[in-house]
Structures are given as C-alpha cells and as structure tokens.
C-alpha cells in the first residue's frame, strides 16, 4: 500500500537507541543447538507464519498469548510501537520460539510475550531469560515490568526468579506488574540464563539463511498434542 512518509513520521514513535543483542547458542536437553538471535523487521512475515496457528490453540492460553503477540509483531513491522525488540530461537533453522519486549523508558523495560512453539525443552524459559538478559546487560535497564497470562508463565517467571510484586500497572491488561530488578536478575542468572557466544558460524549462517517453520498440524501437535510435553 502507498506510504506517505511525511505523515508516517507522525505515526511512528521515536525510538530509544538500542545496541544489538548478540546472538548466542543454547544446548537444549535433547542435545540440539538453539540459536537465539534478534529478529529484524523483515523477519516478521516469516515469524507470523508460525505464530498464526498458535492463535487457535486454547491449551495453556496459547490463543491469547499468540493473538497478542501477532498484533505486537505487526506493530513492530509497521513501526507502530516504541522501542520494541523481538528475539527468536531456531533449531536447525526452524523457528521454535519467539519473545518480545520494549523499553518503556531508558530505565524501565516492559515485557510483552513469550511463545514456545516446541515444548518440553525449556525453550520458553530460555528465551524469556534471553529477553531479560537483553534488558539488563545490553540495554542496561534498572527493571523490567512483567505479567503472566498463563499458569506456566507464572511458575517460570514469578516463582522461579522469583520476581517482586508491585502495584505498577502493566501495559498488558492494566493489572499490577511483577518486577525484575538488576539484583534479582544477577542472582538468578547462574540458574536461569543459558547460552554461549559466539555462535559457531555454520549454525549462525543456517539460522540467518532462512526462518523455517513447521506446518500448522505439526505446530498444533507439538503444543497441544495428547502428550502435553
């Protein structure tokens, strides 16, 4: 569609400067290597192909998480959100998870969503930890505001870190946020933040060459299959 760049300048929020997130490699429990890297705008259409089927899965609130993430990714794509970033996990080039977040201001981060497209390997936890790593170690923020939309999220973030309850409203739904502080993050880091750098060049090349995505049925089976891994 035609874009009036003069008008666009009014629609696009100003962005805070954000140093890039350096990619890392995580060895999963099954021995597979997951490359975690920052998504670029042009990666969004490929990512959306994997998010879309998740919007119709009720189990574990995948529908609400995916639907909201889908909208947020579009906002990132169309420059309609302020200082949003997207990280993704790929195994053998296949997209296995996505997380996004944004800088509320220079000191405070606003965590959005975590979507694991394959389950049972702590992919969601690893990617959430990567998101927090970006906020704390590369954006040098003082805190991140977080809410959970699923019991699994509550267990993984609020309980495992553990996060601090606040009365600060969160952008997602307006409820009270939990907070990750630098102190909490660095205490939890040895337990919860995995990965090594640099990523071996062949793995990085494979990940960057193409974001592969499983077919809809495979994604649904992985997430909502009988096994519920």
């Amino acid at each position: 569609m035609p874009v009036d760049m003069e008008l666009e300048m009014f629609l696009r929020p100003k962005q805070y400067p954000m140093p890039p997130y350096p990619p890392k490699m995580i060895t999963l429990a099954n021995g597979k290597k997951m490359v975690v890297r920052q998504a670029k705008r042009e990666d969004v259409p490929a990512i959306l192909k994997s998010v879309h089927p998740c919007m119709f899965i009720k189990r574990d609130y995948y529908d609400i998480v995916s639907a909201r993430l889908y909208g947020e990714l579009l906002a990132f794509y169309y420059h309609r959100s302020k200082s949003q970033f997207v990280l993704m996990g790929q195994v053998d080039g296949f997209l296995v998870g996505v997380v996004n977040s944004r800088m509320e201001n220079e000191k405070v981060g606003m965590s959005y969503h975590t979507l694991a497209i394959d389950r049972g390997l702590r992919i969601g936890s690893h990617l959430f930890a990567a998101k927090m790593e970006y906020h704390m170690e590369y954006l040098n923020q003082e805190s991140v505001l977080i809410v959970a939309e699923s019991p699994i999220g509550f267990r993984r973030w609020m309980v495992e870190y553990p996060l601090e309850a606040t009365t600060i409203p969160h952008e997602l739904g307006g409820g009270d946020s939990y907070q990750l502080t630098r102190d909490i993050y660095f205490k939890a880091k040895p337990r919860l933040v995995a990965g090594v750098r640099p990523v071996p060049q062949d793995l990085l090349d494979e990940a960057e060459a193409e974001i592969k995505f499983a077919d809809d049925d495979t994604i649904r089976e992985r997430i909502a299959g009988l096994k519920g891994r």
Partner: protein
Amino acid sequence: MRDVAIIGAGMIPFGRRDEDTLLEMLSYASLKALDDAGMGDKKVDAVYVGNMGAGILQHQSSIASSLVDRLSLLPAAADVVENGPASGGSALKNGFLAVASGYYDYVLVVGGEKMREVTGWRATDFVATMTHPEVEYPYGITLPGMAGMFTQLYMEKWGVTREHLLAVTLKNQEMGALNPYAHVEMTLSRDGIFDSPDAVVNNPYAASPLHLYDLCPVSDGAAAVILCPLDVAKKRGKACVQIVGFGQATDTHTLQEREDPTDLKAVTLASQQALEMAKLKPSDISVAELHDAFTILEIAESEHVGFFKKGEGGKAAAAGKTRLGGQIPINVSGGLKARGHPVGGTGVAQVVDIVFQLRHELPENRQVKDAKTGLTINFGGFGNNVTCFVLKRIEP
C-alpha cells in the same frame, strides 16, 4: 488355589489428557483389555479399580461402581483399591486372589489416575498425603524430598554416582521415545543434561542430589487387564500369560524408623515371595518393570530384587546391562520416568507392558527376544508397601 492367567491387556496413551475425565480414561483402558481378551458378550464377575486420588483430585468417590455402570457390566462386583502408588498392584492382587480362590472366573482389573488437572505443586502435595501425618507431612516433606535424602544416603553407602543415575535417565527416555503409550516421547542427550554448560539450567536440582530429569512426570493415564483361570485361558488356543508369582510386604511408615534407610526391605521381601511362589531365581527373569519414580529407585530395586549385588546396580546400569539386549532389560517401556506415573495406574501398566513383552508383540526395537518371564515392582509410599508380580509366557 487355581492358576490364573491374563487373557486381555490394554492401556491408553499416558500424558496430559485434558479432554478426558478419570472415568472415561478407566473406561477406555478397560474396553481395550476387554476387546483384547475377546470377551464379547461374556460378563466379568468382578471389577477392581486401583486409584489413589479420585476423592482428593476429582472430589469423586465410588468410581468402581460408576465404571461398572458406564461399561454396562452390571451386576459385577466392584471395588476401589487405594494403596498409594501401589494401588494398581494391590488391585491386581485382589483380582488374582479372587480368581485363584475360585470365587470369580472373569475379573477386570484397571488402574488409573488423573493428576494433570491440578497444578504441579497441588499434585506434589496430593502425593505427599501418603507420608506420616504427624512426623512427616506437617513438616513439608514431599516424595521428591524423601527421594533426595534416600539418594544421598545410597550414594554414600553404596557408591552410586550421578553418572549411574544419568544412565537410567538416558536409557528410559530413549525407550519411552519408542513407546506410543509413553507420556514423554523425547530422547535426552548427555550433553544437554550433564556435560554442557547449559545443563545447569536445563537440568537443575529438584531435590539434591536428584536433578529434574531424575524424576518421573506427573501423568494422566489408565491401564487394564482381564484375568481368568489358566485352564480356561489355555482352551483359547493362543499364547497367554500366567501370574506365577505374587508377593507383597510393608515397611515402617517413616524412613527414619528404619534401621538402615537404604535397605528397601519390603522390595526384598515382596520379590522373594513372588519368586519363591514362581519357583524362579532373579536370573531366570527375562524382563522387568521396576518402579523408577526416581532414577535411584530403579538402581536400588534392581539390587533388592537380586538382579545385582548391593552396590552393583548403578555400575550395571552404566555398563548397559539393564538395556534392551543386556543381562536383564529393565523398564523397556520407558518406565515411570518416560511412560509416566499416573499413580493408581502404574502397577497395572507395568503388568500390561510385561504382558506385551511375553506375548512377543512389540516392535523389534522394544521387544526382549524370546521373553519368557517378567517381573514387576510397584512401590507404594517410600517403600512402605510394595507389590511384586512374576509373569510367565504360556505357549498355546
């Protein structure tokens, strides 16, 4: 006493079965066993249901009567047998004795549990209700906590190492990945859960010295068998499985009251009784399903049953002696570790897996070649109530 045969066996895939009620799961497993037995219009005389927690988790009682009605098996006698995680084994014992005594001819035994409709911590609390109500539970003990302490002692006394536990984890996950009924159809790698720097995050301590992947999952599932007199089974003209040995023993409720907490006396006694009744030695057993709710238990039970000397079980696991094709294949189903552990269903599921083995109907990658005898250990409480069955293939 009459000889007793298992003429039908069935199981539903274990896992997280959000769409099914407990009664539905029990029904599906029962129907599979009834079909497998070719019961047709033949009615069963009695139904024994092994279940630990319907009253707590589903707020439902009298599930055996509900099941009989659901399956149109009226007016079969119906009982629920609750014996913690050994409920399945105890239900089978009741069915076995009922047929052996001559009182009933056809008996359905089904075990099942629906645990995934509550959060993990509520499920852990539910299982902990089997601990001592005065000196254990009020102080926050859980079964993983007990297993952690037991493992520490066992390591100190019998030289079990984390490498030994790891061998059990990797083997059982590998076998579970081949089992269509298993809850966790996923192999793990040594690199991912032990060697790599990321293993600390992937496989954290659950109850020191046990790590996450030393524990079985919390599962929904059900399994069932049909029993009848052996002479009736033989007339069917095809291979069947006889229950040739049974044993059961109890131990002190609390671990600290045991003279040696690493000594699982009830396992030793139950297996001795069962093997004696079967007139077999541990070395005569072709395949075993042991109660590996925690990896340490597979090792400890393999020693207490007599497959290996004390202190040798861990080394045997690490040397591959318990793998398919090894000296004594253990938990070829994936065990509780991978097949899953719906507590009241486990004891029956173990027997179903052995029946499949003894009928030689599993694919090559899971079939113990020429399996003739099998043994199960169903471990209730923390070893305070243990059942053991010895099964034998009967040629047509």
